[in-house]
């Protein structure tokens, strides 16, 4: 299995169409083409963090400056960022639009990803954090735009889970 270049482009186009021009990310395999596209795009600012919780702070700073933004991370990074999600974003009503690579789920060959994959949805539900699964390149753009809109109208973190179906060929 390889990362889907075409579907990564569909995701990136969705980000562009949403109006977002500021991304923060922790690089991971499924995000490789997305990050390359962002890096090559003079209209996009991409900040790569050392740990995903930093990206929650970056998103808050960008939001305070009036700039809509998106966070790209793996689900394990989301789990590592939870205190920032709860005690910055939720506590202060800061919108977050997180695109999360859902590793360790259906079809996952690597054992090390599996526990994080299994617990991602229960954690999202436990937090009451609105989420959707993105599976189809034809609709992912709309889902991204709607995620950005909903994060801002609800002043809440929202998550779009990028599935294997979407991210791998």
């Amino acid at each position, binding site marked *: 299995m390889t990362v889907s270049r075409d579907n990564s482009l569909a995701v990136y186009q969705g980000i562009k169409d*949403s*109006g*977002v021009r*500021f991304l*923060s990310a922790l690089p991971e395999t499924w995000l490789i083409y997305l990050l390359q596209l962002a890096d090559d795009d003079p209209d996009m*600012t991409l*900040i*790569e*963090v*050392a*740990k995903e*919780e*930093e*990206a*929650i*702070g*970056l*998103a*808050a*700073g*960008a*939001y*305070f*400056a*009036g*700039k*809509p*933004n998106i966070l790209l991370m793996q689900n394990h990074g989301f789990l590592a960022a939870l*205190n*920032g999600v709860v*005690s*910055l974003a939720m*506590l*202060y*009503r*800061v919108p977050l639009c997180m695109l999360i690579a859902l590793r360790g789920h259906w079809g996952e060959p690597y054992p090390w990803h599996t526990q994080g994959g299994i617990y991602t949805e229960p954690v999202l539900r436990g937090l009451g954090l609105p989420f959707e699964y993105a599976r189809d390149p034809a609709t992912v753009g709309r889902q991204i*735009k709607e995620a*950005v*809109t909903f*994060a*801002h*109208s609800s*002043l809440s973190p929202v998550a779009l889970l990028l599935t294997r179906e979407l991210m791998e060929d």
Partner: protein
Amino acid sequence: MKRADCLKALYPELHERLVVTIMGACAQELYDLGHRENFFYLEHAMGLASSIGLGLALNAPDEKVVVLDGDGSVLMNLGGLATLARYRPRNLTHLIFDNGSLLSTGGFASHTTAGLTDLAAIAKGAGCPNVCLVTSVYDFMAAAAEAFENTTLTTIVAKVEAVGPDHYGMDLALPENAFRFRRHIVQKQGSKGAGKPG
């Protein structure tokens, strides 16, 4: 040197800057000097004040950003120093008050207490381009004045006593602080896209 004395001396210089402060004693001491709409108090999520500052500095390049940090918070986000160094915003000053204590959460000794962990050395090692260590209010203000004048990411580690206010409390709900801080910045920028996601 007391952090409260540093903040008192610094306060008049903060009026035109966007200030992000960490929780607890530091936040309270700043608030007690007089709240301003350009102050954001991060009362939890320890470590993320510098990350908020980076997000602000990059997205509001015409503003001057000041982050008031502490040893306990910095130790929770050492990677953030490396991220700051990598993107080195020209409009950010990072003030780290090192009191060697987790003062606001019980006064436990922090890793810097015995002098083994050197935050200035860590910041330098992370790649922060302009780092200094100060131990007097005079040197603190001299370093801050220089940082506010230059266009280089500056990190100032100020060694202070582990003392704080005798009271805690603000007449400012946390989301209210966030809403007003954002409104202040967006209005100042005259950003037409403010409040709209796209």
